[in-house]
């Protein structure tokens, strides 16, 4: 059963150590500044779409959700340094696991709570019985 080899698994390295050495201070600061500008722009945009006629009225909440998700993306990439590089696999997996759990718990709760009165008598029938 045992697979005895002398080679070590090359894909299995401690994550997070490489990118700190590769970036110069200047590049590091530039990354944060770009992130900051993007984050500000997205924040400003969400205030702007509230009172604009550019977007169809009922579409405004959808636009806000889109901007919020974009904001999260900016934070993850520019401030938390999530990349697709192999040394970031753990972080990406952790993020995916977290998103999945949050989606399951929130989505599931909404579905369950929405369904709770399914077996109740419709309201107008109940009113009739009370007469």
């Amino acid at each position: 059963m045992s697979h005895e080899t002398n080679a070590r698994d090359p894909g299995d390295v401690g994550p997070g150590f490489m990118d700190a050495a590769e970036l110069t201070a200047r590049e590091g600061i530039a990354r944060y500044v770009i992130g900051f500008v993007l984050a500000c722009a997205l924040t400003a945009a969400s205030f702007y779409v509230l009172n604009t006629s550019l977007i169809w009225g009922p579409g405004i909440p959808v636009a806000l959700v889109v901007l919020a998700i974009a904001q999260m993306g900016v934070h993850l990439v520019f401030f938390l340094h999530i990349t697709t590089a192999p040394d970031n696999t753990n972080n990406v997996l952790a993020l995916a696991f977290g998103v999945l759990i949050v989606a399951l718990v929130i989505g599931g709760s909404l579905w369950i709570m929405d369904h709770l009165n399914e077996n109740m008598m419709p309201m107008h029938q109940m009113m009739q019985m009370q007469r």
Partner: protein
Amino acid sequence: MFGKLTWQAIPWDQPIPLVAGSVVVLIVLAVLAWVVIKGYLPYLWREWITSVDHKRIGVMYTLLGAVMLLRGFIDAIMMRSQQAAAFRAAGYLPPEHYDQIFSAHGTIMIFFAAMPIVIGLMNFAVPLQLGVRDVAFPTLNSTSFWLTATGALLVNISLVIGEFARTGWLVYPPLSGLPYSPGVGVDYYLWALLISGVGTLMTGINFVTTILKIRAPGMSYLRMTIFCWTALAANLLIVAAFPILTATLAMLALDRYLDFHFFTNEAGGNMMMFINLIWAWGHPEVYILVLPAFGIFSEVISTFSGKPLFNYRSMVAATMFICLVSYMVWLHHFFTMGAGGNVNAFFGISTSIIAVGTGVKIYNWLFTMYGGRIRFATPMLWSMGFLVTFVIGGMTGVLLAVPPADFLLHNSLFLVAHFHNVIIGGVLFAAFAGITYWFPKAFGFKLDEGWGKIAFWLSLIGFYVVFMPLYVAGLLGMTRRLQHYDVAAWRPWVLVAGIGIIIMICAAACQVVQFVVSIRRRDELRDETGDPWDGRSLEWATASPPPPFNFAVLPDVRGEEPYWEIKRRAIETQQLSAEPKYEPIEMPRNSPTGFITAFFCTMTGFALIWHIWWMVGLGIVAAYAVFVWFAWRDVTEYSIPAEEVARFDRARRQAREQWLAQHAGQPA
């Protein structure tokens, strides 16, 4: 000055809690006095209380769990004897006291017995099996332990000062809301769990980090033991689930303390949301307990069958499958709450599907045993008892997963029998298997096999005699948590369960005797080689008990069963590998941070329960000050000189060489 706390908080008029409480206080005082008089206090403080060594913390966790297991077991004895007596009678426990007992039993058994033992065994074995020197954050580990101890302490203080919750172990509102539970019982529950929950969350983070980032050279993911894999899965579940528990209980605390309306009837609150959220934590919690248990059984069954685990990769896949699907089943705890057919069908089916993962594991264990040279040592007996018992418990679980059946069996003793069947048969048997298995590693001598086997057989028989009748009583319509009843058809089954609990008492006594006898006979039971069970994973590669640094030189892992291969090579060549070059080892310094933080957290929790606001402020500020003081420390590590490492490792190598010489000529 002291908020709601007065002399009336002590139940002077109720003899049972008062006497029980006084006895416990006397025992604790006697132990403390003995420790002080014998002069053990400095030793305890230096070597145990302030220890950040994962092995010591693991032992302390397990000890805490064992003591709380005894406390929860006494509650169980009281419930079974009350029901045996209370047929068309009042029994000896008044309703308000009986309600506290079943609430305390559930709370203690899950949070302060099962969790500490499981976390304790993970603490002890995971770093050793990964071939490393400690966990990622040793001082955090110590703090986690002491915060758990804080929770246990608060629950036990409620025995003497005030009362405990009368609401069941998950404090459903509206019963746990202020209008229906005005006393301090629910507050004791809330603060004990909020504080110990932080500790558990920190453990989760610590172990996920350890397993993902700190492994011996060459220890790739698919070379880790199954116990490490199940520990990884369980700790991922902790990290994702415990925040839900903390948030839910915090919302209930806001309802009770600051007049919020999350779970009330008025002002738009919805108590169904509490039940939904608490089970979104509660079902993953079941797997937090049982996945490490599966890991222990995997180790034990493979070792005592003398074979590698059958189909290792499917075991890993099944573990991670259970880890994920355990988040998609929580509604099965409240099928009857009113959701329609679609929701109930979805969660019923997902519940049945999760049993497939467990089924894969059962077959893997069976095929590991098949064709193996099985040694029936105590840990193996617990594992085989588990296989049979857990399959029965799993089957009744799949039955309960069918919503129409659940509508009949919900809240009945059938349900009670089911979850005791899986938790006792799964988690508790694993705890005993794990303790017997790793005890020689932790203390350097084996536990007495004779008493261990008697304890096993009595536990197994006692379990069936208690819980099989409860299945029947449940099918006959007996609901859970009855203080008294007058249905003649239930009576015989309740009486049989009462006889069963007597067998369980004998089993518990045998366990205690096992420890006493083993400690007295420790010189005969000594494990010289560090490998008492002919083990396969890395924890057996070092001495028993292991030195603070675990391994003189970190092992170089080249296969799935690293220690087995080292051992085979040594037997084939009739010599150990060449002596390595020893280097000094840096180890984290002991720190009282965890103990002092937990002391102030206990103070804060107690003050919050009794509304002593100045003490709340004092406790929080002091706990934070300890953290700052720790963050500003200058020296974090101490160095163990190379000579000491060498001296230690040479002694171990000598013992191994002796063993080789004695077993010369053994087929490789």
